[in-house]
């Protein structure tokens, strides 16, 4: 029998990128909040610049919970299991070691259906896609993007402030109310070289936004560009995860209680079908944390899974799933199918970070005419300075040398610093037959079914990926690349850091789990935070959007406390 803990007003499940941000406005409003976090506290002392530990052995993810609950993938009738989970359990979550690229979605991403229909006709929406317009446009989310950018600290170059375009930034972005709070991260010779090549092609290069300090911000250090940001935490607290931004501020209010190593299993409901609290386990001991409001902020897979595991007489198919929408409209960002270039000279990319780069948005979203094309959406092209020695020595030899021995050694010695791989994020859409459910045969150590991914990329993804590879090859060649390799198109949607849907947001409760404010249509005191509520991906990293939505949901809760808390 679970130990029943003292009542609280709000319980948030997961204190990561979304939950860690949402906690602040709630605590600042004087509302008591208990945060149940599966991981523990880490600090900058834990983030040694150690490639073997961080990148090769996946230390950041070698954590209490996630590795025992890795989603399975159903592919052609077979069940595949990934060796590791890409997400991290810790206070601050995966935002401790993420790349920290902090993009706003572009206006088109909120209105894929209506804009595509208006410009090209309804027939251009890919067959089988369940994509909907968001219940609001960018203008509704803009104040929350702005709030989070300034609260945690985002560096970047604005391209559109209240309609005034600035070619140093992204001229394709939607209007923002003001500039970023910090200038962009600095460039390097390599990123400058790529920018010049793009300009010569008539494109519009710009430095991308990052939740990383380009200068001292809010008492925290500027970035040191030391080269271990990728899957590493920051050794000077310049990466603005909730661990060093919103969570300490929320703690100062005295309203936030953080419970670490809390392994949440299910959410309970009362006789009226309202969420009544959360069950969790620590070291084999079961606890029940009652609360007036429950905020589910784990990760896309675990958000869906926790709901599906929380069965009750009122919700026999899982919490808030009486319309069968939990797990639906799942998609993972089509961020594979890369392009790698070989240059005839050293690039000096040994230092830097994935967020220190140059972006092209000319081929993203609907920023170009798709009339003569056979796909919709687009991709963001991103090149950056980031290289470490084991990865460099593990380089492909471009059919110019064997894979070991003296000839290999001579090749690697000469070429270790001469390659670059672009990061190409592309529009991905939800489809009727892509969804998450519970695996019928694989369980975690507590005996609970793990999440199962049933999803493949579709024709639109393949055509778009090829188009974007063409553009990236063109860019690299314009910059002097002598060889190009293209990554293969793999149709399987694996376990990923960019996972969307499963608890989609929308006004129609027949096709969406949460309403426009992020609260469940079927359970009014259950809020859901994270990219699981997003119905489209855009062509850029999801975290800032998830955080802006989380802040908005938290603010809505504060403003409507009596009606939601009951």
């Amino acid at each position, binding site marked *: 029998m679970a130990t029943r803990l003292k009542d609280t007003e709000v319980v948030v499940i997961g204190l990561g990128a979304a939950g860690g941000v949402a906690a602040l406005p709630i605590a600042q409003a004087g509302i008591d909040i208990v945060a149940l976090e599966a991981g523990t506290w880490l600090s900058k002392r834990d983030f040694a*610049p150690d*490639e073997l530990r961080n990148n090769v052995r996946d230390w950041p993810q070698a954590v209490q919970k996630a590795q025992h609950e890795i989603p399975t993938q159903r592919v052609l009738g077979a069940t595949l299991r990934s060796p590791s989970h890409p997400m991290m359990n*810790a206070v601050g979550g995966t935002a401790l070691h993420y790349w920290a690229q902090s993009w706003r979605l572009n206006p088109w991403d909120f209105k894929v259906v209506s804009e595509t229909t208006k410009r090209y006709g309804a027939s251009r929406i890919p067959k089988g896609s369940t994509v909907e317009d968001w219940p609001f446009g960018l203008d509704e989310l803009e104040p929350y993007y702005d709030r989070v950018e300034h609260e945690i600290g985002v560096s970047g170059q604005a391209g559109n402030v209240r309609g005034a375009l600035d070619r140093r930034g992204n001229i394709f972005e939607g209007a923002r109310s003001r500039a970023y709070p910090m200038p962009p991260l600095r460039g390097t010779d390599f990123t400058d070289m790529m920018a010049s090549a793009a300009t010569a092609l008539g494109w519009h290069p710009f430095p991308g936004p990052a939740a990383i300090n380009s200068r001292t911000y809010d008492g925290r250090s500027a970035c040191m560009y030391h*080269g271990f940001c990728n899957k590493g935490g920051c050794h000077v607290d310049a990466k603005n995860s909730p661990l060093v931004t919103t969570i300490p501020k929320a703690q100062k209010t005295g309203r936030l209680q953080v419970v670490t190593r809390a392994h949440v299993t299910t959410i309970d409901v009362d006789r009226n079908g309202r969420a009544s609290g959360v069950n969790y386990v620590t070291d084999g001991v079961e606890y029940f944390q009652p609360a007036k409001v429950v905020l589910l902020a784990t990760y896309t897979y675990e958000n869906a899974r926790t709901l599906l595991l929380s069965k009750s007489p009122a919700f026999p198919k899982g919490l808030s799933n009486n319309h069968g929408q939990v797990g639906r409209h799942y998609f993972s960002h089509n961020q594979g199918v890369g392009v790698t270039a070989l240059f005839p*000279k050293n690039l000096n990319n040994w230092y830097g970070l994935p967020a220190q780069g140059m972006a092209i948005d000319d081929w993203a979203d609907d920023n170009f005419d798709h009339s003569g094309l056979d796909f919709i959406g687009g991709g963001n092209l991103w090149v950056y300075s980031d290289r470490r020695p084991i990865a*460099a020595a593990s380089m492909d030899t471009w059919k110019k040398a064997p894979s070991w021995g003296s000839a290999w050694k*001579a090749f690697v010695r000469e070429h*270790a610093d001469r390659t670059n791989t672009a990061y190409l994020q592309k529009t991905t859409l939800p489809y009727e037959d892509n969804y998450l459910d519970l695996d019928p045969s694989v369980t975690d150590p507590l005996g609970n079914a793990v999440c199962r991914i049933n999803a493949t990329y579709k024709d639109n993804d393949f055509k778009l990926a090829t188009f974007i590879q063409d553009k990236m090859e063109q860019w690299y060649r314009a910059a002097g690349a002598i060889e190009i390799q293209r990554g293969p198109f793999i149709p399987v949607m694996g376990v990923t850091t960019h996972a969307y849907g499963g608890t989609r947001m929308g006004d129609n409760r027949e096709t969406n789990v949460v309403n426009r404010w992020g609260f469940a249509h079927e359970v009014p005191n259950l809020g859901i935070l994270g990219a699981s509520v997003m119905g489209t991906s855009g062509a850029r990293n999801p975290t800032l959007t998830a955080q802006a939505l989380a802040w908005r949901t938290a603010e809505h809760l504060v403003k409507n406390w009596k009606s939601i808390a009951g």
Partner: protein
Amino acid sequence: MISRRELLKRAGIAGAAVVVAPAAASEAAEAAAQTPAAAAIAREPLEALTAAEADILEAVCARLIPTDDSGPGAKEARAAHYIDRALAGFLAPSRQAYAAGLAAIDKAAMDARGVPFAKLAAADQDAVLHSVEATPFFALVRTHTIQGTFCDPFYGGNANFVGWDLIGYPGVRTIVTPNEQRMGVTLKPNHKSAYEYAMFTKASASREPSHGGHDGDPT
């Protein structure tokens, strides 16, 4: 006149200097060659492998990333030491694969030449390795040899930073200036392990599902 290759061979571990500063190569190598202590590399105490297994592994590593004109290789980096130590820890699940894989390589040498792998001439060792190139164990040992040659020296490999010097990696820094990210600049190698910086906790990569030692609220 003694060849550069021969010099390097004699110089052994100190041959790293050749890669660090090519202009000073012969001078450095010559100085090293005159130091008797540098002539031989002593094997560290074994933590997982048997002495016979370690002999084979040392020889395999030395052919995968050979000591040659382009400088020291896996032997000087002590990649085999890295692997042995890791097999007693993080790579323990691969211990059986090493027992079987090393035995198979030795058997291939005996079958082909009637001589244990470690006793074969380099060219014959290469021929044996070519015959097992497609095996999963070869891919495994290649991966681990690269790790052992290019990892942080904290893990027992990349001794004297010979791996990092080989590919021109200028080393672990905690602050990098704009100038250090320019093309064409020559950066002085920073021969430091991450854990020589006092600011970092020596957290090891464990297979155990815990970050360890960080429980509890810091406030």
